[in-house]
């Protein structure tokens, strides 16, 4: 079986990369840290105009109706840019759920998401806090086996500390109701597992992008920083760090692509594939983080240098939607239990 991306999928990725290079550069990110929501002003509207927010929205609701394999390269690109917008939560997690459940919630929210008028936040029960809850328009919240679509006006949020200044965390108070219910019981349990898999996959794809950018930044620095008469990248003590992180990242990348196929087709091995991808991508991105920090030296953790924003996003997404250890245990269970 051949698994590769189509020319269209690669062109989607290149097109989004062009937009994010222009609009989500590190100066824009630094400025976003100072805004109330932590987002880049105007970027969401541009993503909507490009059609990114409507990618997974079914055509009858104004979107393009693409699946997880079409999204994965875009999520990787969002990670590469450390894009602070809730693209993964809205496009890769909330939208497929709403489309699958259908009904009034889908009729209400999907056209808004496609048009760039609504952003979503995701609150799974095992996560203590909800990212972007105060600024999102719609919250997908889990209580037991039940999933709810809760408008922002129906929740109370309290800010919590986050290491990533562009990914604000909140404790959320809310009351489940029949009006907000998407699904419960066995259906809710199954959908909750699909949401969790999509969330982990989205985080894994972004981690691969984040790791790639950290490697690029570090290589560039190691080639330009001269010490003892030569670029520091010429020293084994430096270049081996980068090479080790790079190889780890390139081994994680195909597992993420494969997991996107498993999620899109809801295969029998979906839990194993997603957990493998999230565990490997988390570890690989963290290796890139450590290599970047080590090879840059002190400049890497200064507020003024851009690397810290990528590193902090790695720290956050590494733990989000299941840590590496949690996903390894889940992968082990999937292997043993079948």
């Amino acid at each position, binding site marked *: 079986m051949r698994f590769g991306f189509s*020319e*269209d999928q690669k*062109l*989607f990725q*290149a*097109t989004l990369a*062009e*937009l994010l290079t222009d609009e989500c550069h590190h100066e824009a990110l630094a400025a976003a840290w100072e805004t109330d929501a932590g987002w880049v002003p105007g970027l969401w509207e*541009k993503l909507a*105009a*490009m*059609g*990114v927010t409507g*990618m997974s929205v079914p055509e009858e609701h104004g979107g*393009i109706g693409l699946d997880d394999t079409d999204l994965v390269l875009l999520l990787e690109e969002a990670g590469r840019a450390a894009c602070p917008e809730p693209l993964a939560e809205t496009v890769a997690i909330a939208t497929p759920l709403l489309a699958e459940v259908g009904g009034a919630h889908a009729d209400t929210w999907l056209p808004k998401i496609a048009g760039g008028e609504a952003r979503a936040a995701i609150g799974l029960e095992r996560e203590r806090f909800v990212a972007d809850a105060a600024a999102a328009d719609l919250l997908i919240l889990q209580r037991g086996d039940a999933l709810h679509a809760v408008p922002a006006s129906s929740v109370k949020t309290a800010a919590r500390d986050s290491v990533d200044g562009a990914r604000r965390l909140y404790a959320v108070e809310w009351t489940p109701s029949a009006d907000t219910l998407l699904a419960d019981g066995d259906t809710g349990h199954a959908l909750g597992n699909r949401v969790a898999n999509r969330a982990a996959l989205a985080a894994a794809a972004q981690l691969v992008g984040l790791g790639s950018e950290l490697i690029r930044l570090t290589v560039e620095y190691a080639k330009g920083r001269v010490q003892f008469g030569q670029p520091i990248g010429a020293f084994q003590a430096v270049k081996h760090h980068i090479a080790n992180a790079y190889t780890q990242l390139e081994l994680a990348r195909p597992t993420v692509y494969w997991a996107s196929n498993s999620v899109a087709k809801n295969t029998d091995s979906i839990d194993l594939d997603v957990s493998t991808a999230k565990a490997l991508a988390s570890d690989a991105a963290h290796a890139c983080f450590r290599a970047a920090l080590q090879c840059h030296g002190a400049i890497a953790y200064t507020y003024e240098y851009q690397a810290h924003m990528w590193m902090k996003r790695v720290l956050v997404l590494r733990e989000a939607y299941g840590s590496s250890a949690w996903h390894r245990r889940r992968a082990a269970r999937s292997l043993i239990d079948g």
Partner: protein
Amino acid sequence: MKIMVCLKQVPHQDARLDIDSAGTWIQESNIKFEINTYDTYALEEALRAKDEGECEVVVVSIGPDRTTQALRTALGMGADRAVHIKDEEADGSDALGLAKLLAAVAKEESPDTIFTGFMSDDDNFAAVPPMLAELVGLPHTTAAVKVVRGDSSLTVDRETEGGSYEVVELPLPCLVSVQTGINQVRYASLKGIMAAKKKPLDVKSVADLGLSGSVGAGAAKVKIEKIAPPPKGDTAELLEGSTDEVVAGLVTKIKELGLL
């Protein structure tokens, strides 16, 4: 109304450029390519005309297989049709050879307007647009920074030396090469990229255009003998003093160099 836009695919601005073994061009393997920056503005100018009224936008490019991606991107941005001149016989063409190829397509298409970029990011000749206009027999102007469309003419502000502008009026059909910054170039949309698959992309050979033997390296009158990276500068002047003194010195330097 039909508008033809000439696009060139050039190495990506962030691509690492290494000189090939012959020393006459760069190594093109394993580098990314993109649409020439100037040409993106030309395309945007055409798409704006299309946005305003009934208009067909035809994009034309010369190059190997990879050039298809540039044409697909243009179709994804909103162009209606593409013509890809793909033939090894065209390799090594000089500016006149390229202009001949584009002119052959222009004669077949008979557009009301041809938009091109002012020059290419890689060759910087700025020679193809006027040559193309002359070969087709069209009035033309270069370095356009503003284009106002009339019923039977275009009024064009063109950039001249020293930051001044010249306003010219050209009857249709005509050719305009545009300067960067003339507009805000749109991004391709994902829907546009998907729709682009269904848009016509015609591939033409040199023979199809009736130009066998008159283009390509063999017919080129200008040959690149050697390319080389710019020599490393060995002097840099550090301005010293208070902030005000440094700023004043910098402004003086900029004026001396004619940069303002």
